[in-house]
């Protein structure tokens, strides 16, 4: 999937086939108009909760599928012809990163959806493609489009080195509100246009789109700001010279990778990231003269950090992860402490790993230190996952 050859082939072969189909079936001007709309649709985007964007493509395809009763020439053929223009437009407007994110995931979703609609148009009687059976088939097709995009994005992920495929998949599945809005827009247009005319159908259909565009844009901005705030708070202890510079950032980066490796949910990964960024926040307590140097332990620091965090209601669950990080993962006589959150174990292992690296050890030596603490302190399962992450990042030899 990473090969540029496949990407290039994707941009040349489908348009050729689409154009051939159009000529064969004598599709006419309607075809050209639909193709042009497809191409332009690439440029209108909704920001996605996962951080990327999704174009208007699903909405247009949805409307075309319902309007033309699943005609493969219009749904797939016109889209195929528009593909290279869409790609070029996105590339010129948003650059390489966006084209990588959208292609080939979006076209793949379209192909699967278009094929399903074509099959449905054969199976469902002609007078019911916009009836309840037709709409159910359409809804199903929409869900499958969404899932296809998520899977293709995960498989295609260039970033696999930094973000494992599973993480990409989980994040892509968070994007359902934008897809829901787009498919609703498309279907609303197709249902209302015959009865109300397109000039009323377009604003009505634009409503779900507009709602989600505005709100998701705000979600994205606020989420970015929230992370910046957490980052800034995390580096306050650094600014006070109480922690090594960059420690929190590095721990957060590697802890999230290890968490994804161990299959944590997206919500848990977020909590782990925040916990890692804030785990040394408690050191600001050292600014208080009542705390004499050397009179505190590491678990005191986590306790202070957790206490500060729990002042913010929304960080309580993050505070729990931080508070428990210095608990042993097992006590004498037991296999593992079943109540200790995985995130706490990951935080501890990765924080110690980074600390040892700061002390001048090599990654392999740091991992050895962790192995030596396998009796009670560092869960071997987590250390194993850390080793795999480091191998993938080529920090240590496989």
């Amino acid at each position, binding site marked *: 999937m990473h090969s540029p050859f496949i990407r290039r082939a994707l941009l040349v072969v489908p348009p050729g086939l689409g154009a051939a189909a159009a000529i064969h079936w004598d599709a006419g001007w309607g075809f050209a108009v639909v193709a042009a709309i497809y191409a332009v649709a690439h440029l209108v985007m909704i920001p996605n*909760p996962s951080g990327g964007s999704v174009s208007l493509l699903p909405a247009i395809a949805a409307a075309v599928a319902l309007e033309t009763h699943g005609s493969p020439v219009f749904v797939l053929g016109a889209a195929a012809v528009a593909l290279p223009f869409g790609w070029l437009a996105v590339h010129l407007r948003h650059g390489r990163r966006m084209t990588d994110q959208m292609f080939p995931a979006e076209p793949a979703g379209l192909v699967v959806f278009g094929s399903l609609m074509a099959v449905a148009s054969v199976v469902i009687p002609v007078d019911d493609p*916009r*009836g309840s059976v037709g*709409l159910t088939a359409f809804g199903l097709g929409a869900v499958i489009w969404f899932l296809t995009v998520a899977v293709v994005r995960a498989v295609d992920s260039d970033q696999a080195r930094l973000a494992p495929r599973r993480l990409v998949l989980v994040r892509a599945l968070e994007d359902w*509100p934008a897809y*829901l*809005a787009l498919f*609703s827009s498309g*279907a*609303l247009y197709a*249902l*209302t246009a015959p*009865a*109300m*005319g397109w000039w*009323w159908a377009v*604003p*009505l259909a634009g*409503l*779900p789109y507009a*709602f*989600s565009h*505005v*709100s*998701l844009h*705000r*979600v994205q*901005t*606020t*989420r*970015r*700001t*929230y992370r*910046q*705030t*957490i*980052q*800034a*708070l995390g*580096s*306050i*202890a*650094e*600014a*006070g*010279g109480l922690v090594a510079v960059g420690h929190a950032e590095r721990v957060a980066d590697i802890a999230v990778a290890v968490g994804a490796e161990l299959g944590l949910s997206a919500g848990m990964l977020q909590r782990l990231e925040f916990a890692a960024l804030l785990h040394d926040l408690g050191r*600001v*307590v050292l*600014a*208080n*003269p009542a705390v004499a140097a050397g009179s505190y332990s590491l678990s005191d620091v986590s306790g202070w950090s957790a*206490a*500060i*965090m*729990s*002042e*913010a*209601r*929304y*960080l309580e669950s993050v505070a729990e992860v931080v508070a428990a990080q210095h608990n042993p993962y097992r006590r004498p006589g037991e296999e593992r402490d079943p109540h200790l959150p995985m995130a706490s174990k990951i935080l501890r292992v990765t924080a110690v790993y980074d600390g040892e690296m700061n002390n001048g050890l090599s990654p392999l030596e740091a991992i050895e230190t962790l192995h030596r603490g396998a009796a009670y302190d560092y869960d071997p399962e987590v250390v194993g996952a850390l080793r795999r992450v480091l191998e993938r990042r080529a920090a240590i030899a496989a």
Partner: protein
Amino acid sequence: MTNNPKDRRTALLAGAFASAGVVVLAVLFILQADPEPLWLWAVFAASFLVLQFGAVEVNDRLFVSSAMMVAFTAAVVFGRESAVLAVALMAAVSALHPDDLRERRWRQPAGNFGQLVISAAVGIAVFLPFLPEGPVTTADLPVLAAGAALAAVVYDWVNFRLVTFFVRMAYPERGLRPWSKLLANHFALSVLGAFGGIMGAAYVLVGPLILPLMFLTFLVGHVGFASYSRLREAHEDTIRGFVKAVEALDPYTRGHTERVAHFARIIGEHLQLGPERLETLRWAALIHDVGKVAVPPELLHKPGILSDEEYRQTVLHMQVVEDVLGRVDFLRPMVAIVAGQHTLLDRGVADGVPVESRILATADAFDAMTSTRSYRAAVTQGTAFDQLRRREEVYGPDVVGALIAAIEEEGEVHGSPDDESAAEVERLVRERAIRA
């Protein structure tokens, strides 16, 4: 039932509101036909209920819910004969918030019931003339959309008036903040109303198949804005929590930031700053002392006045933290205000320093003077005013004047009650310092 006159007043008012609501509903039952079919009304009522409870703060104190859209969709769907009754009944149901039921409050839901029913009835009644006599056709759409936009504004305006009236009468001591976003709110709601009208026409023209799509549209809007609102709240909560934690490091300054935020607000309001500037100022006041975490304890807790070098060191340390916070987009304007405060105190001249920074500096100085610290007692309010007047060239006469006027207007008293008690506390503080 208590004998507390305030409670009695609220109860009376809630009763009056509820009775007015009941009367309006009774009249509507006589004038209008029952909404048919009932299941359709129930579906609309349910979504109205959900959206009404889920109103989200999309901007500072700007609450929007797409319930307005549902109201106008329902009005078109049920037609002239039963539109007002249908929507008023939907509004009546939505007065019963589960939180009120759980906590067995009755005054608020009773008041809400009246206010919601009346505003829905008035709003939809204004819309009635725009509804066609017969079945809706595409030719009616422009009139429907325009009528719904207008009626939505009336609906919202009546609602707002009733709420203000209730709050003013029931809680006269609670200052009602000017609802400066009223215009923006009206605009948003009139757009929602217009779309609600078109959506209703679409239902009539296309048929019930469009129903799921309509509700998906309502849902999409709600989900997006709700998650935005949650995130925004989490973000602000995080900063506030952190500020509180930092404050706790120094027992003498506990509550200081909240007080500075309060003084800054009343000065800002007196100087008639806009709502957005007031909000930024509030955040600046909340974070203005966060930089202290990086100040070495021996400097931070040093009794008495700092030497020039020590002061320079303190500011330097605070600036490091402010630089860190300035990396957050949201906090950048607030950090700029705080930095302006340092510049002001460094230069000692108000010229060229933004008014927000001067307000913050004045609020900070006033609170420092009127609260007891480890090394000295609080002065009286009069002394603090005199001191500020004497340093008018630093803080700016407009700001100092505004603080004094605002505090006198609010009838607040800060600091030691009189010079004798100030002297007494001063003596105790000194004694303790000597013993230490």
